[in-house]
């Protein structure tokens, strides 16, 4: 009987002590920083959603490395005997990952939002630049290389706008940088060219003033050709009577320097001859006294300076003629009007009527503002 009681007692002791023992074992089991790891993962995921991998690459990469280190450390600790495990480093790495990922998120949000604003402004300013280029230089004789650069810049600007609208700001930034380079460089080149051209404005003004005074004093007709606005003005006694659209030499910017340069000369000339009928290929024509003495001197000086080759020859046979109205600068240096306008002008001018050809009657500032 005593033996039975002893057995029951032992069994009971074992039954109680084993769960107790297991509970003690569980209680003393090292606890991994599960919550910290979950938090780190959530923050890292949030950083990725905020495109920190794009806009805050360094911090995001560090955050990822810390998270991976935490996982690797956790994995290695789990290989050890359960009571020899230490999860302190796992927690430390998780904390570091959270810190970096949070910084990466903040940084990414601010960088992308700043970039978004900056890009929007850049797109708007480049759009405005394109409008300005078109307004100022659509009819200005730029080199084909510059024209191609402008066209390429416009396409890149459009591509940048498309990727910008998709939220791909870094790609948009790259395309905008390329577009900006092409457009700004072309604009600066063309503007410098234009500014340089308008350096002669004071001379042109003097010529115009003298032409108008002469017209007034002589009570006679005078013709002024404004190359920039492509206009032919007819004055009588110093007052403007008629205004026609004019077409010029293909390379009209600047003074004529040599034969075949497709430039329309600038200077104060006179009508030397009048042609009509079969005497001209251009319906009717008014031959100018180009080159005059000043043009010859300038040409010789250029040859002497070496800015023109010794083989260069001075141009000539510059006319105001018909066959115009094409809407493009197509002549080899002459001024083309429509046949109807030639009929009209032919009647009122005579041999000796002054013809003053200038770059522009308006100042550059006014031209740009217009």
């Amino acid at each position, binding site marked *: 009987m005593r033996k039975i009681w002893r057995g029951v007692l032992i069994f009971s002791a074992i039954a109680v002590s084993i769960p107790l023992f297991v509970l003690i074992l569980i209680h003393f089991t090292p*606890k991994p920083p599960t919550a910290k790891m979950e938090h780190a993962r959530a923050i890292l995921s949030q950083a990725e959603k905020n495109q920190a991998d794009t806009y805050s690459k360094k911090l995001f990469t560090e955050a990822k490395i810390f998270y991976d280190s935490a996982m690797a450390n*956790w994995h290695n600790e*789990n290989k050890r005997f359960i009571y020899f495990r230490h999860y302190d480093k796992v927690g430390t790495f998780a904390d570091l990952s959270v810190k970096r990922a949070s910084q990466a998120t903040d940084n990414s949000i601010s960088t992308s939002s700043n970039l978004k604003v900056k890009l929007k402004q850049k797109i708007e300013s480049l759009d405005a630049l394109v409008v300005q280029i078109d307004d100022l230089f659509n009819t200005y004789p730029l080199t084909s290389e510059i024209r191609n650069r402008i*066209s390429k810049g416009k*396409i890149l600007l*459009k*591509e940048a706008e498309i990727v910008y609208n998709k939220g791909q700001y870094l790609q948009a930034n790259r395309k905008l940088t390329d577009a900006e380079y092409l457009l700004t460089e072309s604009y600066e080149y063309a503007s410098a060219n234009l500014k340089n051209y308008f350096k002669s404005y004071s001379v042109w003004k003097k010529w115009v003033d003298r032409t108008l005074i002469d017209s007034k004093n002589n009570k006679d007709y005078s013709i002024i050709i404004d190359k920039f606005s492509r206009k032919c003005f007819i004055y009588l006694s110093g007052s403007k009577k008629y205004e026609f659209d004019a077409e010029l030499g293909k390379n009209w910017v600047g003074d004529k320097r040599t034969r075949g340069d497709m430039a329309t000369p600038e200077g104060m000339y006179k009508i030397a001859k009048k042609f009509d009928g079969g005497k001209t290929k251009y319906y009717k024509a008014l031959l100018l006294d180009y080159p005059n003495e000043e043009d010859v001197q300038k040409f010789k000086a250029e040859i002497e300076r070496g800015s023109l080759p010794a083989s260069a020859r001075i141009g000539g046979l510059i006319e105001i003629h018909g*066959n115009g109205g*094409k*809407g493009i600068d197509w002549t080899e240096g002459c001024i083309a009007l429509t046949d109807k306008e030639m009929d009209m002008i032919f009647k009122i001018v005579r041999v000796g009527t002054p013809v003053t050809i200038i770059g522009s009657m308006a100042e550059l500032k006014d031209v740009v503002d217009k």
Partner: protein
Amino acid sequence: MKNKVLMGLAAIAMVAFLSSCGKVPQAKVDATNAAITAAQTAEAAVYVPAEFTAVQDSMKAINAAIEVQKSKLFKKFGPIELKLDATLAQAQKVATDAVAKKEEVKKEVETTMAAVKTTMEENATLMKKAPRGKEGAAVLEAMKTDMAAIEASVAEAQAAYDKGTFMDALNKIKAASEKATGINTELKDAIEKVKGKGKAVAPAAKPAAKPAVKK
């Protein structure tokens, strides 16, 4: 004394038994990782980035959950296996979606490219009909350069398409399309304006025969 030793051994054996029960479902982990790699190869990050990030997040959570179980005395991988099954299916869907989206983008590039080519051909025809009044011809000259740039852009889009970078090709061809359409509208408006005014449309006038004179 003998009993105490026996009890100790029994306890250790029990701990060893309890802690060793439940194995990491490695085969499923490997299969899911392989499916994620397949999705990556299918350019899921490019064509379905949000879905791909979600599946990667799920896998990260599973890896953490595995370590959580491995840290415990009594391991339980049943719920993880269910998550693995779901993530595997998700990864396979992401791969399929990426392929479908890529095909969709490819088709869009093809359609837009064909449309741009048609618009460009139409633009070339409209150019001949466009009015060449005051500055009109000069504007047409500038348009010709723009059209050459569009053609170059179409060629770049084609090169990106041939390389299989369809997103890049799509961005390029869309820009070219907008530009070509812009020119098309401009030309049609100019022609319409002239028709509205009842003016005759001037033919594409060529410069008169060059005189054999110095200029």
